[in-house]
């Protein structure tokens, strides 16, 4: 059975105004319901630019971006927020707020101009809090949370949007192993049990290889491989893209990268 195609990026190129070279060139990306699609690549390889283009926040110079069969640029921000939830790399907390309040912000796209939150909005927030296992934190102030709890709360806010596509930009940066694994397991479960399509931007080659169904590897804005982790993450490709010698092992059928030390015979 073919799963529903949620995000369809085809032959996209993008250049920042005044930049000498394309930030993205000829990138394809198809994210389907129930799939975790990871995007890997070195710093500056175009991962975050790809997210901006995919969400209709930057207009590609060439190619097309379709969300649920409709051009990304044709969606209003409000309409897109009802089908795509994003956990951005960073955000500010200008004013102190409680966990439940910040998750309730996920309902903005469902509220009318002068209306207030209805029972269904609060129900969506309750579900999202429970799904991310943060219901017990609902009345805590944001600034009292640990890094792992905070990321799960932000994920809950994205789920309160009741999206079909979840976009996570470096969701586990600066988290320890336990919190990192908890978050990846949660993301995997959201795809498997809730049928969400997940676009996961990450630096963790090994975690992407273990949790993702497909991996897009970017190098200088160009695709260096797209497919099942075992097909994309070969030694030759990874060494070329990350410019560092590695060894590739296999664990539970998934490739795992081990970076090598300098001064060994590979260099």
């Amino acid at each position, binding site marked *: 059975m073919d799963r529903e195609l949620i995000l369809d990026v085809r032959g996209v190129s993008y250049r920042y105004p005044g930049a000498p070279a394309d930030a993205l060139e000829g990138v394809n990306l198809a994210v389907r319901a129930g799939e975790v699609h990871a995007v890997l690549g070195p710093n500056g390889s175009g991962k975050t630019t790809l997210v901006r283009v995919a969400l209709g926040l930057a207009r590609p110079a060439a190619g097309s971006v379709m969300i649920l069969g409709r051009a990304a640029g044709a969606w209003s921000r409000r309409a897109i927020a009802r089908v795509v939830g994003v956990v951005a790399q960073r955000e500010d907390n200008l004013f102190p707020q409680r966990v439940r309040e910040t998750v309730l912000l996920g309902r903005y796209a469902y*509220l009318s101009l002068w209306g207030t939150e209805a029972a269904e909005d609060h129900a969506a927030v309750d579900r999202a809090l429970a799904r991310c296992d943060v219901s017990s934190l609902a009345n805590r102030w944001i600034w009292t949370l640990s890094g792992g709890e905070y990321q799960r709360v932000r994920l809950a806010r994205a789920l309160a949007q009741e999206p079909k596509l979840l976009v996570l930009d470096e969701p586990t940066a600066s988290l320890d192993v336990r919190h990192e694994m908890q978050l990846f397991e949660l993301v995997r479960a959201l795809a498997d049990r809730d049928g969400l399509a997940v676009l996961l931007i990450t630096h963790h080659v090994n975690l992407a290889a273990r949790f993702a169904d497909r991996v897009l590897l970017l190098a200088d804005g160009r695709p260096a491989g797209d497919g099942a982790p075992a097909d994309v993450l070969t030694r030759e490709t990874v060494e070329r893209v990350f410019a560092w010698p590695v060894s590739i092992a296999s664990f539970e059928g998934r490739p795992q990268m081990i970076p090598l030390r300098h001064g060994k015979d590979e260099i």
Partner: protein
Amino acid sequence: MRWLGLGVVVAAALLLAVVLGPAHVPLADLATSEVVRSLRLPRALLAFLVGGSLAIAGAGLQALVRNPLADPSLLGLSGGAGLGAVLAIALHVNSPWALPIAAFAGALGAMALVYRLGLVGGAELDPRILILAGVAVGAFTAAVTTALVSLSDAAELRNAFLWLWGGLSGASWDNVALLCVYAPLPVVVLLAAARPLDLLALGEEPARHLGADVESVKRRVYLAASLLTAAAVAVSGVIGFVGLVVPHAMRLLWGHRHRPLLPAAFLGGGALLALSDTVARVAVAPRELPVGIVTALIGVPVFVLLLRKWTAS
């Protein structure tokens, strides 16, 4: 309960403004007194409208530039208004409406300049540049204003300085009516932006992801806050700290959600300025202090406390 309390404060502030004054009016004669009808009542209402406009503009502005210590005076509008007014005085334009019209024109000129500078980085309005541009435009207009004042003769100079410090002595039913017609539109624009302003506190990019049309919200809030400030400055001169202190005080009671915060700031700002103006009229009667001095004397210590609290957290 909080709203009831605020309502009582507003009513008390307006009542005090009507009851107190250098001329003794017996309570029994309040309703029939000519002093109350043609002087104190319009002045109390004007103080309320101006204070409310400044406070709601300040609350919106703080969320827009993402700095809780922002004040409408940072927009550079006051400087433009001051320059317009002083120009009118220096050019001996004699008409009861000359000062407010010149001040309003000066404020709009400054607003256009600041807005243009805020767009200097491209098509997106950059709130950080907006504040810096406001300070720069304010400093420039203040320099020109001071040059004009130093070149004019003594009587004019005193007028100009008093006007710059703000005062509601020019209050009349005419300018109360004018503000009643003028202020609702920008106030409604700000109220309609309440929810997106909540999102903006997370940052522009997260606000977009949650569904806010960030560029449009920034423009609408800047223009509405500026138009309110320009009108306030035009009828009463430069009145500082109401727009800074009142939103903070209201946040302590209502939290940081803009839906309740913005109307609370309007009511609280109105009450504070009505009270301050009563103090300004009564404290050194029969003479009058410029109300901007009273709000600054109240506002600066509160500002220092807030600054300490802010930097400590």
